[in-house]
């Protein structure tokens, strides 16, 4: 049990590393994630539940392990999403800023290479993302949005399922670890 805790908490040597990426890696995956969200649901509407920009935000925040970097990455991806949506600029931006910040903060305490932990964090951050969007939509904009809890939990699970292999693919973009 203590070994598992040690593994998850990343106290074993060589686990708490900061990953670095090439500059292009910060541009291409988020852009592809946004394009995927724009284009693919046209032909496969059942894939509209996938929140790939959120997963990319979570990944970079977790791997960078720097709250400032996580918040900035989340802010930029969120604003890009806002610009391509009908919502006011800042709605997704604020939520993803917070997601990036908290994901990076959490990553300093856990071993984020662990697939199970990645799954749990993806699930948690999707629920957090949807919940905060709902609060913001109702509180700040007076939108008549409904939070459908069962649907959100199912979508969170499906996103987490997708996140596990996606993070493994994104791991290949790492240039070095410090």
């Amino acid at each position, binding site marked *: 049990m203590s070994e598992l805790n040690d593994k998850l908490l990343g106290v074993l040597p060589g686990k708490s590393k900061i990953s670095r990426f090439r500059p292009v890696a910060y541009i291409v995956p988020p852009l592809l994630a946004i*394009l995927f969200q724009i284009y693919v649901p046209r032909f496969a509407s059942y894939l509209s539940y996938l929140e790939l920009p959120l997963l990319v935000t979570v990944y970079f925040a977790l791997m960078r392990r720097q*709250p*400032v970097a996580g918040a900035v990455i989340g802010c930029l991806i969120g604003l890009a999403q806002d610009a391509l949506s009908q919502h006011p600029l800042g709605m997704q931006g604020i939520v993803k800023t917070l997601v990036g910040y908290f994901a990076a903060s959490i990553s300093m305490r856990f071993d984020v290479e662990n697939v199970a932990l990645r799954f749990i964090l993806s699930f948690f951050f999707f629920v957090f993302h949807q919940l905060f969007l709902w609060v913001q939509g109702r509180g700040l904009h007076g939108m008549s949005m409904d939070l459908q809890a069962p649907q959100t939990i199912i979508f969170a699970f499906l996103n987490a399922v997708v996140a596990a292999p996606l993070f493994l693919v994104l791991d290949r973009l790492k240039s070095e670890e410090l």
Partner: protein
Amino acid sequence: MENFLSRYRNLSVLLLLVVAQLLLLAYQVKARDDVPLIRVWAVTAVTPLARGIEGLRSGTGGFLQGYVFLKDVQSENQRLKHELGDLRLRNRFLASELASADRAKALAEFRSRTPSKLLAARVIGTGTGANSRVVFVDRGTTDGVKKGMATIAPDGIVGKVVAAYPTASLVQLITEQGSAAGVVSQKHQVRGTLKGVGLNTCIVEYVQNEDKLEPGEWFYTSGADRVFPRGMPVGQVKMVREGRGGKEVVVAPSGVQAGLEEMLIVLDGVHQLLPAPETPAATDVNILAAPPAESQQPASSESGEGAAVTDADRLKDRYQRVVSGQGVQLGVKGAIADFNRAPAPVQVQSAQPPAGGSPRPPESPKPADPAKKNGEATKQ
């Protein structure tokens, strides 16, 4: 201060980012204006990519699919399978060509019979956000599209333009949460507000429990929202039941179907009348046969015996028979006919008397009924 910032550097950056975006939000909400620059940049950057992908898909998708398919057949080296695959491929291609031709024809026909000024647009992408129900179309401000314009399809309304950019526009589908349209039912003229709930169906609010509404009844736009012209089909009532604050009505929108690829943007809307409901013929109503044609009408009294249709005709006929029975010629000086005597029946006049027998004297006239007499005199 410097010490504080360096100590709480992470938190300071977070607060800075959040507050900056909150100010951005506040500006948009208070000024009721957008920040078009960021959106224009983003859309202008993404639209060519989306157009390119769409063009690539529509142009080469079929060819690649066919090539791979044919390669598989060649590897199997079976002539019959090859022919079957080829025919299937051709059939699919022709079916898709036919479907696209039908869609284009339907759109063109719809445009020609709709008085509103319409602009055809093609969907090139969907909006961001999980389960989003907004789409990008390939028409923008350069084509005359403006924010707030309605979009329709031959089957019904689709949504409205929520943002217009130079090369593309963002259309919010009617099924998206927060979208609304004024509607009126076809049969019972029940008014309400159609609202999207983020599902494939919509609800109609503000319908009183006392209002009459039936499942299957059609809803049309009422024109009250000043976005959709009156008379556009919206959808059919899928479910209706009484609720606490009013009727709960679920409508299946007819214009927003899966695989929506084209739509029409209403540049200049013209209100139309609601079509009359198609009511089935009632079984307890007697429908009389059509009246006879003019040629089958009874002939006038002038045409001869049996042709009398009015009292005046019958009286004239009676007097003629009286006169002819008494051998008197009307309009000639001499004997005067006794009109108090009963007229001779026609068959008696025409029949020959029996041989050797004296002709039967005419019957003595019966006293005329004063009332009848007066009536006849009056008619005369």
